């Protein structure tokens, strides 16, 4: 079991729909989420001890765009505030660690991304090696294509397996009001589509999305005071593999295996897994590395294949899982966030309900 200095729970959460295009500013997109979580706990804004956000200036298209995002979180008079240039799941991680110090009670976490004005393929190629990868525009979809091809070459998956992930994700999203894509798709029809990034087809890849999410987390006593039904964060862990894809075994995820061990994933039942499956082959790798079997509902929300606002999408996995546990759809589960191309970095977060 993971030993924590402080028990921490999610006491409020909110997300936007995954927008095909949100025609206003990023702060205007975040603000309703922030207002919602503050309203849910009934606190005065300035009684929240710490505020942290995750976003990406390259997506926003402006140096220091994250500073403008502070407009959304209610930062006047000044508040104690921080930012990570990562998905909001890593903002949650920092907030969780911050609460372990035991001197503050509450953290407001947000994540946001507007992908539609620019090209995420061009933007995210800039997180690769600046000498040997970025100058040739090595983009995340290409790296996902390598991963898919490696799975096929190793006999670990087929294009039909990828299509089945897509069909299941879109079917699950029919019950998710925040999803951008949903519906009943036939695997044979999917396989009849042309390749976009051979061996991947268009729906093996995520839609382009704008969106945001926010939550408030609190130490145990405060959590029970603020919320009748807190969802406990039992553990978080983040592991990284090489940024050189040719040095990795792309058919496996050793970083997920280590993180799963560290969070004690199988110390209890895993009812639900909300996974950052940005490209369909990733679900096959993640199921295997997490050791999931048929007892776990994987991406009942539909996951990122049905709505993928980068920089909010990982935090949204935690929100979707928290909602499912709060609703009693399961008692314990895991949320997964990813950063870097082809599952290079992975974060796992185990949540558990009281009942």
């Amino acid at each position, binding site marked *: 079991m993971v030993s924590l200095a402080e028990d921490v729970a999610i006491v409020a959460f909110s997300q936007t729909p995954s927008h095909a295009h949100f025609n206003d500013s990023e702060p*205007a997109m975040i603000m309703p989420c922030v207002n919602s979580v503050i309203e849910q706990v009934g606190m005065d804004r300035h009684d929240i001890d710490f505020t942290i956000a995750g976003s990406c200036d390259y997506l926003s*298209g402006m140096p220091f765009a994250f500073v403008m995002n502070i407009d959304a979180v209610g930062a006047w008079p000044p508040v104690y505030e921080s930012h990570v240039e990562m998905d909001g799941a890593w903002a949650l991680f920092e907030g969780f660690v911050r609460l372990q110090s035991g001197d503050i009670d509450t953290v407001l976490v947000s994540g946001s991304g507007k992908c539609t*004005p620019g090209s995420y393929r061009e933007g995210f190629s800039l997180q690769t090696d600046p000498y*040997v990868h970025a100058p040739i525009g090595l983009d995340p979809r290409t790296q996902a294509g390598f991963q898919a*091809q490696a799975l096929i070459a190793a006999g670990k998956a087929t294009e039909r397996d990828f299509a089945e992930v897509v069909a299941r994700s879109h079917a699950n999203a029919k019950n998710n009001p925040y999803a951008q894509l949903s519906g009943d798709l036939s695997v044979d029809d999917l396989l009849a589509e042309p390749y976009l990034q051979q061996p991947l087809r268009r729906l093996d890849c995520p839609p382009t999305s704008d969106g945001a999410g926010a939550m408030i987390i609190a130490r145990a006593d405060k959590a029970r005071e603020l919320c009748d039904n807190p969802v406990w964060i039992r553990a978080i862990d983040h592991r990284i593999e090489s940024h050189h894809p040719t040095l990795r075994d792309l058919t496996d995820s050793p970083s997920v295996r280590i993180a799963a061990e560290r969070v004690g994933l199988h110390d209890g039942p895993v009812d639900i897994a909300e996974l950052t499956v940005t490209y369909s082959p990733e679900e096959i790798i993640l199921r295997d590395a997490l050791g999931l079997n048929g007892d776990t509902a994987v991406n009942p929300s539909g996951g990122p294949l049905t709505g993928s606002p980068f920089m909010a999408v990982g935090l949204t996995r935690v929100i979707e899982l928290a909602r499912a546990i709060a609703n009693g759809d399961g008692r314990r589960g895991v949320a997964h966030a990813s950063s870097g191309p082809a599952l290079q970095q992975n974060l796992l977060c185990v949540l558990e309900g009281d009942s």
Partner: protein
Amino acid sequence: MPQLHDVDYTLEYPYTRTTGPVIGPFLTGLRDGRILGQRCGDRVLCPPMEFDPDTFSTLEPDLVEVGPGGEVVNWTWVAESSAKHPFDRPFGFAFIKLDGADTALVHAVDTGGDPEAMSTGMRVTAQYREERHGSIADVYFVPEADAADQVIEPGEEPVTITEHLIGLRLNEPLYPHRARFAQGLLDGKIIGQRSPVTGKVYVPGRGYDNMSRVLLSEADEVVVSDVGTVVAFTELNPVQYYGQTETEPYVRCSILFDGTDQPVIGIDIRDMTVEEMRVGMRMRCIWRDPEDRSVEDIDNRFGNIPESVYTRFEPTGEPDVPADQLKEHSW
């Protein structure tokens, strides 16, 4: 009449990076038509690294030529190339294990647009660009049978710096409140947004009141005066950085328009010296003729009241506003 337009904006950063003792010779080699790997125990790493990827211990530079031929060990076909890719048509990206290397290099393979020509195990060979800059993009690969003989003239100095101009293009409509603000300028009006919570008027509005955390809409918009008070000013002496278009010193000021609670910053003054400017001075906007106005410099991120809508700001001759009444707005 001038019209509104979508935002088409390119964010650019010109990066220069030192190359170090291993990547430097590697990039020098590419410029000169050879590919170098780094010895690591009994292995050869290509792309070369300054460290052992298994133990992370430092490797002393020990470079050895590899290739130009190699084997594709993994590949994917790019049906729609991006503006940052080496080719503007469909091509393959591949893991290429060069002859003499034990690790693979990621690079582009040009098969003339034919995905059927790609396969695991295929032989490829290096080809060089006519213009080479000491960059990984100096080289690309083709199927071995398609290779042309090339004579590469080596350069002179070793590559110690690499330059990478990154440019991210953004394209989107003006946000609704930005479009109304911009249209107002074309109409010779300055439009602000009044917070229903505090009554404060912001110019230009941002679509929300960040003090009270409420979204603002067209119903909250007001036309404000084009006469106001200078609350801050400075003289800009243009530094010649990448993208700079100014060459001569000029005055930039902030003006608090009458009836508003937030100064408009970044108003440029060309016909007065910094010595003639005063905090508290009353100024009036002299608009350009309607057909001469343009809001092309207004996008969703930048642009308040650009010079393309006014000819000058003219002192009204009214008595100055005492500076201590403006303290809250001195930005």
